[in-house]
């Protein structure tokens, strides 16, 4: 792992306008991503965990520039790509790829697998017809699908196999960074482990960096070097995977870990169940966004938003508690 990060995100904000009334005036904003900074190094996996609506997928889509962020900046290998447009973005599209949650929705149902996997080469104008076909066969082999898959359509495959096709497409152009947005959430457990193994093997083989977005902390911890926990558009804690699990400091991280059901019937510990729902990012609570659900809330938390601070080596927490 080199010291120079492959990706650096600084104070990124993505505020979606909320249109209301018959005049569709914008009076409110959905602050899906509200000031996030993070870095990913070469060959590293950063896991991003949070509940639905916390902004983790939006962040992923900002980094791939599927969304134009409201403010902040994204540096890829030191170059600012936040405001690049059109053809200037093309080389980065090759380097930053994405795997989506639902392979049925992200693969074109009317194209054969061969066409789907050939398309990235055509877009980037790489090779001729024959060499492209060869590449497609190589890709299928890499992700463990038979060569005869090229002439088949996505619906002919099972969920796990479709996800393999999605993965093959994402690594087609030898990317440096792959954003994995809930890649195993829709799969059955026995298939989930196959896909996780494949992602780990590919990372070793091609020295890939991953931003691995998921809501399942156990899955994220398995694949990640570092983990960032998100809540309402902000990172509340980030540290090495093992640290997050052994020494979670933020009350939200703690309750998240305590809420995971463990497949061991002997472990009948009383869970620390946090009450309430995740508030809406359109009208987030004042002060610390977690304060209405926090079991250790203090008066100060209600007014003063906590800043992300370093409590130990590479362990950042955003909380007023004396940790």
């Amino acid at each position, binding site marked *: 792992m080199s010291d120079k990060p492959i990706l650096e995100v600084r104070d990124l904000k993505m505020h979606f306008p909320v249109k209301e009334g018959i005049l569709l005036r914008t009076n409110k904003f959905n602050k899906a991503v509200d000031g996030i900074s993070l870095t990913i190094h070469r060959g590293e996996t950063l896991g991003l965990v949070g*509940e639905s609506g916390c902004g983790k997928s939006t962040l992923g889509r900002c980094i791939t520039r599927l969304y134009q962020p409201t403010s902040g900046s994204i540096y890829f290998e030191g170059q600012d790509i936040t405001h690049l447009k059109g053809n200037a973005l093309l080389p980065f599209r090759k380097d930053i790829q994405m795997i989506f949650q639902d392979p049925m929705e992200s693969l074109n149902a009317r194209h054969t697998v061969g066409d789907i996997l050939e398309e990235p080469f055509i877009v980037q104008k790489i090779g001729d017809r024959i060499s492209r076909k060869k590449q497609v066969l190589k890709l299928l082999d890499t992700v463990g699908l038979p060569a005869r898959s090229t002439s088949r359509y996505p619906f002919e495959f099972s969920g796990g196999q479709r996800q393999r096709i999605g993965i093959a497409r994402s690594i087609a152009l030898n990317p440096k960074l792959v954003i994995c947005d809930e890649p195993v959430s829709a799969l059955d457990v*026995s298939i989930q*482990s*196959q896909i996780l193994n494949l992602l780990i093997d590919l990372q070793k083989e091609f020295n890939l960096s991953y931003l691995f977005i998921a809501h399942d902390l156990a899955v994220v911890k*398995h694949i990640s070097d570092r983990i960032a926990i998100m809540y309402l558009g902000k990172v509340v804690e980030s540290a090495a995977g093992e640290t997050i699990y052994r020494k979670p400091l933020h009350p939200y991280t703690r309750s998240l870990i305590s809420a995971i059901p*463990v497949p061991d019937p002997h472990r009948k510990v009383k869970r620390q169940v946090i009450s309430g*729902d995740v508030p809406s990012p359109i009208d987030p609570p004042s002060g610390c966004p977690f304060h209405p659900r926090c079991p250790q809330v203090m008066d100060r938390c209600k007014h003063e938003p906590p800043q992300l601070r370093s409590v130990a080596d590479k362990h950042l927490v955003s909380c007023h508690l004396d940790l």
Partner: protein
Amino acid sequence: MPLLEVSNLITEFDTDEGRVRAVDQISFSANTGETLGIVGESGCGKSVTALSIMRLLPQPMGKIAGGSVLFQGVDLTTLPLSKMEKVRGNEIGMVFQEPMTALNPVHTIGKQIAEVLLLHNDYSTQRALKESVDILDRVGIPSPDIRMGEYPHQLSGGMRQRVVIAIALACKPKLLIADEPTTALDVTIQAQILELIKDLQAEMGMSVILITHDLGVIAETCEQVVVMYAGKIVEKGSVFDVFDNPSHPYTRGLLASIPTLETPPKSKLSVIDGMVPGLMDLPPGCRFENRCPYARHACGQSVPPIQVIEAQHEVSCFRWRDI
């Protein structure tokens, strides 16, 4: 006598390609006050089992082709529909996976709960509404009298699932069937809902059948567990039997393939190779044979009989002694 006794239940569907057997000769029983878990992957027949018990199979395609479902000694499969309607929602309540589709979007919450009470009791509208408020309060909905007048879309996912539970429990059923009640919810909300079901179960002394694909949820909430694969029960027993001494290769494979917070990061997860056979072309022998690392010639020839390991622990495998 167990509260519910399912014996040799067979459920079939007529499809364009012919008749498929989604549930094939399964037997299990649920005791009073106990929680029974049914676990398996998509398409294994766990939801169809629940729908068969409730006689809610899609018509005219689905039908119970054999076996019996004894509830308090009465066979539900042969009960006239008019009597079955008195059982559903009154003596057996059901909670579905997706609370948005289970609730009627054009009726208020209050009306939907009162409807069940009016249908099964000789209540005045006023009394039914009053009791609905009490039930909403009991399932942990804040300011229930205001919520009564709201529509499903005004509630969060967790709140909607609480309403569905309130409807299922309104008539104080003896048995609650919960089909993936927390799958669509975030972990912290899942913890709240599981806790709620557990509390209400203790308070009302009812039995619960919990259907899920999550072995963690089973381990934490159930006393008995049934493992299903491709329409058949492969193993059943107490949670301690099944988790401490998994005897079917499928149960073993399933337990080994889940990443937990304890597994070392980026280590190889064990996988179950291959895929579930399609219900249209089931093998003549053991249905797990093509994926089983212990399979021998005999496994492909005939269906393994159910064998008793000890008192309550049964497995359907020729080779359980050797593995």
